[in-house]
């Protein structure tokens, strides 16, 4: 059983009005925020559901070589941890100024996901999707004279099932090839495997 306690002032509550109300507790994480009028929170349990953790460990026959994600996907794309993900959601996603992207396919996402994340499998960002530009524009890109301008593109944090999968590195590489600025992308390498192993709560696909 794994347990983890984060002390200090990580407990933050943010409303859509962008006002920040910090609620610190001594030994537990409880970060509340509201997205689209729906109250959500990140909490850390004292216990860990090992079956849930195991469900996020998988090796892929599609991997070219061992399924071990690199520590760094590309230069200028920082690899971040759980604290940075929580802070990103609470300060940017909560006010519509950032996107937490779940890069897994829809079946893998069905095992549970981080609250507020948006599912964008890399297959949807390929050139054979006639609606590719619709997605990029929804992410903040602007079309001008037939070309996309990413100046106003939203900051992204991309994750997948964890260090044993390559969905997130693949999606980040695809985004970079499409022209998405590297300094607007972060890679959460721990993914669902580490997130659940740390006892952090997830959202069920049916909820």
């Amino acid at each position, binding site marked *: 059983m794994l347990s983890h306690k984060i002390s200090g002032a990580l407990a933050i509550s943010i409303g859509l009005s962008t006002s920040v109300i910090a609620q610190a507790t001594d030994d537990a994480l409880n970060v509340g925020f509201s997205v689209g009028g729906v109250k959500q929170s990140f909490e850390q349990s004292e216990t860990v559901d090992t079956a849930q953790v195991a469900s996020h460990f998988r090796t892929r026959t599609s991997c070219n070589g061992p399924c071990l994600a690199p520590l760094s996907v590309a230069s200028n794309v920082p690899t971040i941890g759980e604290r940075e993900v929580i802070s990103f959601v609470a300060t940017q996603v909560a006010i519509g100024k950032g996107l937490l992207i779940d890069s897994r396919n829809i079946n893998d996402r069905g095992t549970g996901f981080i609250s507020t994340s948006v599912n964008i499998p890399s297959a949807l960002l390929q050139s054979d999707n006639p609606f590719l530009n619709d*997605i990029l524009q929804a992410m903040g890109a602007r079309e001008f004279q037939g070309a996309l301008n990413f100046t106003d593109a939203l900051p992204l944090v991309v994750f997948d099932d964890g260090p044993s999968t390559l969905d997130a590195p693949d999606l980040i590489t695809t985004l970079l090839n499409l022209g998405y600025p590297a300094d607007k992308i972060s890679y959460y390498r721990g993914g669902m495997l580490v997130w659940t192993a740390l006892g952090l709560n997830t959202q069920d696909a049916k909820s």
Partner: protein
Amino acid sequence: MIRSVVALFAFAVVLCGYIVLRPSDNGRAMPVVSNDAAVTRAQTDAILAPVAATAILTNSAVIQAPQRNTAPGINVPVDNSTMVSTAANVLAGLGLNVDPNPDAVEDDPMRRMTAGVLSGIGAVTGNTVTTASQDPTPTSALELLVVQALKEGQNDDYIDTLVNEAATAGTITVPEILVTSDGRVDTHVLLTSIIAQATIAAGGVAPTAPERPEGVEVRIVQRATESQQYRFYTVRSGDSLGAIAMNFYGDVGKYNLIFAANRSTLSSPNNIRVGQRLTIPDA
């Protein structure tokens, strides 16, 4: 004598009158016929009223009008757009905002998944984002060209010439399934799809597949316990994959069935060749 002169004069007057006033089959009659033909599609006034536009688009004369042109063609520039979205966008440009065809959306996993992504992003950012299928507007050069021609009340032959000239000049791109075996744009299929969508939007019955598709070749293979029926079609001059799909399924959107069944010989939907024998799977 005087009577003879008067009689001759009267004859001359009658003859002159006949020459001047006789019914003519010369060039003066042609513009009238041409003008009649040119009003078979939506008029500008009708565009303001979606229902009226539908009625004009769905009249029988229009449905029978499109004829496939098999003149020698050119290399047609293609794009990734679908017939469903192209037809919907043209109708939107004519003031007839059809809802996205739910069946088509269900049939297109990429479109369905994209709609899910856009919905998810919209829920987070607070911005409503839609795909072209959800919010049709004419955007491509082909759609704008056809909308303009239909607003002017041009007939099908005119639109066919217009579209093919634009494709030759490289100023438009078209859906892959509109490219014929001789390298032209199959405007017949495009116009028929527009009519079909307008019909459905107006509450009409969707076109159905003909019972005996034209040019079908049926082979029955008898096995010990069962017999299996196979259908084939040999590509003719002027055929497009969209036209073949319409011939067999009554729905251009099902071209993918034919394409998927013939991937070994068909590199892309715009690459069918005259004489090519295609397997036609059941719908």
